[in-house]
């Protein structure tokens, strides 16, 4: 098997769902790390083969199959040669480690070295168990607030600012970049860039409690025009209800527990405990990428959020079918 075929075979084995793999990079950060991965992989693979070969050779060389107790051996000439061999092997090991260190540092610098003037800036705040994403602006009414679905322009550097509202989370989209912890009491910043349009999945990577497993997000990378259209759309206040059903839905929202935690801009609901729902209808998924944003899933989620995501902070809502239908329809219109 040639090296290249083996390489592609291994890549195939570490195979790929298209959007969620450290070895399928979508931007300069992840591809820089991927390059380093394969370099270090082949170095360690070579080391593995050499050491295993050495032990195998050593084992078969003087193997004795008798279980009798053999006399002791003393081989001064052999020990002298072994000293040279061990010395050489240690020397090569040290050189190899230096090579790994060097490549690691230059890759680190390259990955972190991205800058740009006026980048898109996104403030990510980790919550148990969802992601708040704010696109800050000096003017308050130009600030976008959304949850779990992050939109970025393709080919442009983006700054991610991190923070946590409760425990430690870790922001990780493997195809985009390595992970960065969100620590309460600390804020940090890092750059990402995505060069291929598409949707890239991410997850929380630091254990954060009961629903750590269901704390996903996605990064949607789209061309500049689409991104700007999305921005403009997100800046608008919520769509006004235009039918009796949606009016009733909004009424249900405002008169039930929903308002305790959620915001719909343009209404009286203004709590920041849970995700901002002003444009919830525009999102592909709900409950931090746990369920598809379909009327059925949304209704099931509202009635009993503890079923699909036990332990999460949203309480069950005992709504009658009419109210529930109206609420789901209303939320669906919030594009």
């Amino acid at each position: 098997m040639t090296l290249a075929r083996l390489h592609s075979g291994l890549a195939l084995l570490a195979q790929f769902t298209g959007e969620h793999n450290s070895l399928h990079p979508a931007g300069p950060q992840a591809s820089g790390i991927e390059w380093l991965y394969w370099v270090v992989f082949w170095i360690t693979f070579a080391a593995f083969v050499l050491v295993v070969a050495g032990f195998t050779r050593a084992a078969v060389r003087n193997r004795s199959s008798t279980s009798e107790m053999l006399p002791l051996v003393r081989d001064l000439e052999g020990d002298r040669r072994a000293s040279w061999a061990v010395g050489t092997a240690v020397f090569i090991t040290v050189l190899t480690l230096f090579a790994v260190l060097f490549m690691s540092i230059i890759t680190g610098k390259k990955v972190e070295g991205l800058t740009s003037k006026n980048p898109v800036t996104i403030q990510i705040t980790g919550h148990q168990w969802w992601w708040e994403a704010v696109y800050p602006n000096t003017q308050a009414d130009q600030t976008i607030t959304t949850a779990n679905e992050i939109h970025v322009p393709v080919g442009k550097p983006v700054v991610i600012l991190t923070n946590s509202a409760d425990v430690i989370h870790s922001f990780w989209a493997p195809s985009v970049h390595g992970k960065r912890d969100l620590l309460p009491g600390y804020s940090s910043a890092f750059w990402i860039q995505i060069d291929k349009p598409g949707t890239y999945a991410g997850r929380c990577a630091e254990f954060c409690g009961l629903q750590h497993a269901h704390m996903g997000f996605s990064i949607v990378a789209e061309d500049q025009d689409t991104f700007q259209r999305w921005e403009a759309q997100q800046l608008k206040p919520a769509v006004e209800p235009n039918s009796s059903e949606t009016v009733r839905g909004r009424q249900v929202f405002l008169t039930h527990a929903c308002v305790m935690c959620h915001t719909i801009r343009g209404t009286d609901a203004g709590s920041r405990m849970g995700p901002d729902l002003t444009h919830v209808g525009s999102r592909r998924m709900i409950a931090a990428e746990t369920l598809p944003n379909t009327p059925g899933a949304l209704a099931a989620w509202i009635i009993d959020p503890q079923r699909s995501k036990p332990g999460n902070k949203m309480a069950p809502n005992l709504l009658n079918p009419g109210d529930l239908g109206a609420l789901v329809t209303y939320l669906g219109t919030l594009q």
Partner: protein
Amino acid sequence: MSQQVAVPESTREPILARTWRQPGGFWGWFQNVHHTAIGVRFMVTAFIFFLLGGVLAAIMRWQLATPEHGVIGPDLYNQIFTVHGSTMIFLFAVPMMFQGFGVYLVPLICGTRNIAFPRLNAFSYYVYLVGGLLLWAGLLLRTGADAGWFAYVPLSGPEFTPGKRSDFWAQMITFTEVSALGVAVSIATTILRYRAPGMTLNRMPLILWEKLVISMAVIFAMPAVMVVSYMLLMDRTINTQFFNPAVGGDVLLYQHLFWFFGHPEVYIIFLPGTAIASTVIPVFCRRHIFGYVPIVTSVVATGILGFGVWVHHMFATGLPQMSESFFTAATLMIVIPTAVQFYCWMATIWHGRLQLMLPMLWMFGFFFVFLIGGLSGVMLASVPLNWQVHDTFFVVAHFHYVLIGGALFPMFAGLYFWIPKITGRMMNTLLGKVHFWLFFAGFNITFFTMHFLGLRGMPRRVYTYGPEMHWEGLNLLASSGVLLMATGVIVFIVNFFHSKSRGRLAGPNPWGAGSLEWAVSSPPPAYNFLELPTVNGREPLWDALPNQPVVTGLRDDIPEVLVTNSLDSEPQHRDELPPASIWPFLAAIAVSVAFIWSIFSPWGVAYGAIPVAATLLGWLWPRGHSPSPRVPEEV
């Protein structure tokens, strides 16, 4: 010290046996302070915790075998992985590899009759046992610790884990660390003071070097985890604010302190494995180890460097790049001493006469598995790669390769090697081979697969995953390996009980090994050595002169041992060891009451201190005088 001709010694044996006899019966069990008994207890208890931790692992693999599997919910899953990790690290790996093997073997290999501070040593066993029971009682009462074996704040803190869950964990830490520290002091003192005359530092068997280095690592590392678990406990019980960012506390302080302990801990677990390797390999290659001095240097270097790499567990926290590069360099540097040891073992095999008996077979398993773990460790040392694979199943694979490779494979090698000494009977070879191949295959199926899961984005500590992630095939494969591993361990247990009663009698030295524990009968008598030996080389039995002198002049009617100096093991004075006693057990109970009480009320420490002080007084209060008054002398 004159050289004379020894008088026939056969009449001494009954006197020595009476002097060193440990009380029998139910209450006698709690009074035993002999190192062979306590060492075996550590090993048996730790092995039981290993089995329990393995059951938890199997439940987790069952849950993860298919997507959205409903075997257990998130609450129980979190408790299970927390207790699995805590059990394997604190209740199995260290107590087995350091305390168990160390307490049993060190005095024998030193050529002495008991461990230093035998009562402290017995006390350490009881507090360890109580700590383990405490953690498991929590789990069985469904209030098990659930914030991970590392219990990061603020998740484990008062706000996000109300109730007593994290407190059980934090106090379990205190128990096990008090135990490890007590044993470390006993072992280090034994090595530095009780070595047979002639066993100079330069001739000290490698296993003693490693136990000494590990003891020192325990002494400097364990205080960190005690400090941090106490900070956590105080934050939870008396409202201190160490980790509350709102009032000047800091969540990273916890991580720094925890990993300042946590990384040396890896070497505390792994160095005993290399100690077993350096002991077993020469025996089955029928030659002295190649590279004694480089190996000693490597072990000491590992022990020291282990304290300089803790930040590599925190690369994703966003520390300054300069400091991250420093810790990458330190982490890569620590590869060198391990590589040196590997090459020396390879040279020993190369220029020896290999006999692939059971312990050696497990050694080859160790080489293979640990090598993979070490190489994936090189990947993890690189900051950018670490950002990708940290906290994923890649890391799960990595540290199981390191810990199972570095501790469990050598442990089985060590068990197959020393069980004949402990029980007096050989283990069955065929069953041992079946055990090896089942375990080796199962292990690699389960854990090699996890590398790919990690690269494909599966984070650690998730109780389930959706089918849309396409992780199910690899997960099912990983789970299937558990069956092979479990079968292998069952074969081992069957082999043990079968061999214990029906195995071939081992005799004093079935392997033709060179260290002093093989000079005594199997199992060793209560006094270990009828005549304390002297030593003429690194492998005392191989290098002994035809008429190697023995030590005489120790009193037989009181439990006396010979104290030698640290460097040249020149005889210094005679030391009387305390007899069997119930007080270590009572003190352990008093300490346990105080610790557990303090979970529920801070006053537990104050009131609990009174019985602790009382039992310690009872422990240390002298009873009677020596048969003949001893004359103090400045030595």
